[in-house]
């Protein structure tokens, strides 16, 4: 088991590293760099050259990458080429705001979709299942911006209880953000829940058909005991991967939803730094996103390990 996880961990580090190399080289091929971007189109060539030197852009790309990597490993991600402040601070505060949004989305979204998936699976082909499955189909079929737009129409225009955009700025405290987090979170939950509900429904149906559940029912166990002791742990297993993948997907959804609601998080920052070619900021966002992806997958593997006794005995399985 230790070797298995050590191996996975090694590949994860490699994946994150390669992802940063890919983004670094892609940004290198962007026309113009931060110096031309900062000075505007009418800058004299000598001013651009001086600016490049100040920003360290005159060195060859490979050496710049390794300089960046060496510092990054010591926790120094450099200064924003545009704002001038520390990238770690800027990304950090955006990340805290996004964590509030993502945290609410994940907790409510996962609980809600597990329950709905379970209900749908247990009432297969009867009306609760049919209505939940229809909802999941709709959730799979509408983009985040549509859900967000409809939610705004319903809850800020027809029944004005939530704000349509976030007015609090980049430095707002979490308490300031809390009232305006619900609509963006609602939009993300709708999209996040669809696939988890489906997977949970499918695996609940599969497990219900299995012999050990039938035995448990025939032994005269109460329904709740069968569901919570026997059914849920097995049905959760395949669902875990979908949950992990959806959390990684959430990063993409967050970008769209944050920009609709003007929410001061990592997504808004991402769009702005791509527009301004702010390489240090983009690189740190890439590292954070790739880390999220990798950690989600590792956690899913680990949880699968805890839930599935068969995996604990390496000899019995391949």
């Amino acid at each position, binding site marked *: 088991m230790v070797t298995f996880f050590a191996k996975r961990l090694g590949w994860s580090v490699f994946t994150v590293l390669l992802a940063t190399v890919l983004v670094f080289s892609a940004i290198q091929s962007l026309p113009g760099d931060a110096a031309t971007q900062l000075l505007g189109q009418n800058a004299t060539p000598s001013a651009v050259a001086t600016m490049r030197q100040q920003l360290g852009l005159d060195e060859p790309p490979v050496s710049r990458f390794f300089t960046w990597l060496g510092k990054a490993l010591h926790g120094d991600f450099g200064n924003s080429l545009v704002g001038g402040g520390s990238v770690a601070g800027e990304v950090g505060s955006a990340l805290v705001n996004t964590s509030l949004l993502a945290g609410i989305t994940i907790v409510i979204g996962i609980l809600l979709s597990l329950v709905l998936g379970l209900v749908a699976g247990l009432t297969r082909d009867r009306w609760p299942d049919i209505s939940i499955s229809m909802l999941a189909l709709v959730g799979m*079929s509408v983009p985040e911006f549509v859900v967000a737009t409809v939610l705004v129409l319903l809850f800020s225009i027809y029944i004005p209880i939530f704000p349509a955009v976030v007015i609090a700025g980049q430095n707002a405290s979490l308490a300031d953000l809390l009232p305006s987090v619900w609509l963006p979170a609602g939009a993300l939950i709708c999209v996040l829940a669809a696939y988890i509900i489906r997977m949970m429904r499918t695996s609940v149906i599969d497990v219900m058909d299995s012999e050990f559940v039938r035995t448990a029912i025939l032994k005269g166990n109460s329904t709740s005991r069968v569901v919570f002791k026997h059914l849920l742990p097995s049905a959760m297993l395949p669902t875990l991967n979908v949950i992990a993948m959806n959390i990684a997907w959430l990063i993409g959804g967050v970008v769209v939803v944050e920009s609709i609601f003007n929410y001061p998080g990592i997504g808004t920052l991402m769009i702005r730094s791509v527009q301004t070619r702010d390489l240090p900021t983009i690189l740190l966002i890439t590292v954070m996103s790739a880390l999220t992806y990798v950690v989600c997958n590792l956690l899913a593997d680990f949880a699968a390990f805890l839930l599935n006794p068969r995996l604990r005995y390496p000899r019995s399985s391949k």
Partner: protein
Amino acid sequence: MSAMTTTAPAPTGPAPKAPSSLGRAVRSMLKSRAATFGFALVIVNIVVAILAPVLTSYDPIATDAMSALQESSGAHLLGTDALGRDTLTRTLFGGQYALAISFTATGLTVLLGSVIAGIAAYRGGIVDDIITRVLDSVLAVPAILSMLVVVTIFGTGPWVIILAVVVVYTGGVTRIVRAAAMDVMPKDFITAAKARGEGMFSILFREVFPNVLDIILVEFAMRASWVVLLISSLSFLGFGASPPTPDWGLMVAENRNLMAVVPMATLSPIAALASLIVGLNLAADGLAKSFGIDRMKEVLG
């Protein structure tokens, strides 16, 4: 007589030449009401997009200040937008951009992904390892960041959007098709083809891909639904179709601030977009079911 033709042929005895698995799957799929409905929705969307100029007498682009922001009426069934353009007309035209780009992009993605997957499965060893690891890293970069970077490098033309989709989704297709191709590789007919001295691409296109066609088709339908989602989101964010193109994502972005005045201008492109993607999803479900493929496994790629 009619009773005889409708009963299934006896299971024993030599069958007269079995119908291809593709034909059988299509027939079993059309028996499912949901899948038929899905295909019908997609086809209706395609037909409407093609016939849009015939279906309406209004111009989707020309502005008409005199009739701006009207509610539903006999002249404008779904009202007009801020520039006086007929909402129904723009909604009918609105699928052209999304459909053309999405289907081209999905086709290229699935083709490229399958070829890469085929090469990985055929060569195996270090080639396979390198391909798998590099694609894993591409998948670890959030799709929207890759899209934004590609769009920033090359601008926002239709081919750039297609390129961006290919960059984002090829990895997932490759993962799925590679796993299926791996199962085919050790079969005797592949060994025979190799012994005949056929080249790699001839083996891939004549022996391997026909045998994983079911996976590839489901992959196409499912990716198409995601690509339509992604492209409409890009248009919405201002990186896709540019005004005054009639495009659903763009229409929502243009009209959502006027939702309290002319809700139809926002809601009708939303309904059209949703009908297309629901159709694609139902079709993908139906295809997967009739081929006996677990669609959720494909999603995980």
